[in-house]
């Protein structure tokens, strides 16, 4: 049966602002299916974002939403979670928002292992502002600010998250739409800071500059580079050259979660009075 997305959307919001073929819409649909699977109540769910095309997502969904300052979703979301630990707090945003201006907030949310889920839509570019390179733009690729090719290496968001202390890290792609909701479900169910990176596409500011003739070519690239972690186990280093692992990349249930630890601090402080 066709999925009823509209019951999760604020009325009158479609068509959304994203360009034809922009993967952000595919990710939003995945998130909606995950919210449906988990039967999240809208009054108990907060969607928090910074600034960017990806960060426009919360405006469409009918639940508690915060559209904040550029790169600051994690800071605002932490405030929400500490004030209301019973809420499901989900952060959404782009690679620029999350790893450039918001990189600091991102790593510290990971380090704290606070029970929130961060969905990061990585289209390797600052889409909204016309295609400046981001910390995720691959070496040699073109952006409006790197017309002769980007000299910098790009961040591996998943590795960054694992290194910084996130306790659940997964990766999917906009092509593998069917997997997006499943990864988000697992991430939300995880107690601790969970990160879901979705390799995305921005045909408008990234695709054209990097010689993709259409969004179809961008989608085909996602299809080609993605290798599920299980399949990768049976592949040689040579076969894995240029590939990107997808699925649940890391999970650790042993680390203390921040709001639970903070509750203990409150208890100790109250007892000490």
């Amino acid at each position: 049966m066709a999925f009823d997305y509209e019951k999760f959307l604020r009325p009158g919001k479609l068509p959304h602002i994203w360009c034809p073929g922009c993967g952000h819409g595919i990710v939003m649909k995945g998130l909606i299916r995950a919210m449906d699977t988990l039967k999240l109540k809208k009054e108990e769910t907060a969607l928090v974002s910074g600034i960017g095309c990806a960060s426009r997502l919360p405006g469409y969904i009918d639940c508690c939403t915060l559209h904040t300052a550029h790169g600051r979703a994690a800071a605002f979301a932490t405030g929400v979670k500490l004030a209301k630990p019973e809420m499901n707090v989900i952060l959404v945003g782009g690679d620029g928002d999350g790893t450039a201006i918001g990189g600091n907030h991102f790593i510290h949310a990971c380090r704290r292992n606070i029970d929130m889920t961060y969905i990061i839509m990585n289209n390797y570019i600052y889409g909204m502002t016309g295609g400046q390179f981001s910390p995720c733009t691959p070496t040699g690729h073109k952006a409006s600010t790197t017309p002769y090719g980007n000299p910098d290496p790009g961040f591996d968001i998943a590795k960054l998250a694992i290194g910084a202390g996130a306790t659940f890290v997964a990766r999917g792609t906009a092509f593998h739409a069917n997997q997006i909701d499943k990864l988000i479900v697992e991430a939300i169910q995880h107690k601790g800071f969970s990160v879901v990176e979705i390799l995305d596409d921005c045909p408008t500011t990234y695709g054209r500059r990097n010689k993709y003739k259409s969004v179809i070519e961008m989608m085909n690239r996602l299809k080609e580079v993605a290798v599920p972690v299980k399949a990768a186990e049976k592949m040689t280093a040579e076969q894995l050259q240029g590939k990107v692992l997808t699925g649940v990349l890391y999970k650790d249930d042993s680390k203390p979660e921040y709001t639970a630890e903070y509750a203990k601090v409150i208890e100790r402080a109250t007892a000490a009075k």
Partner: protein
Amino acid sequence: MEKTLPKIEIIEKYCKGCHICVEFCPKDVLEMKGFYASVKNLEACIKCMQCELRCPDFAIKVITE
């Protein structure tokens, strides 16, 4: 057993003509007609839902019983 066909609804006021549903349908059921996606060969549809899943714009629904 007779095959039941789905109803495929394309909401033109949402469709942005990106071609994604057309290109990735495994059975070549869809086509672009002018700016919008449109159904070309409903009989071939296997109700895999790939088009509905991948449409970034909430513009295509595969309605099955």
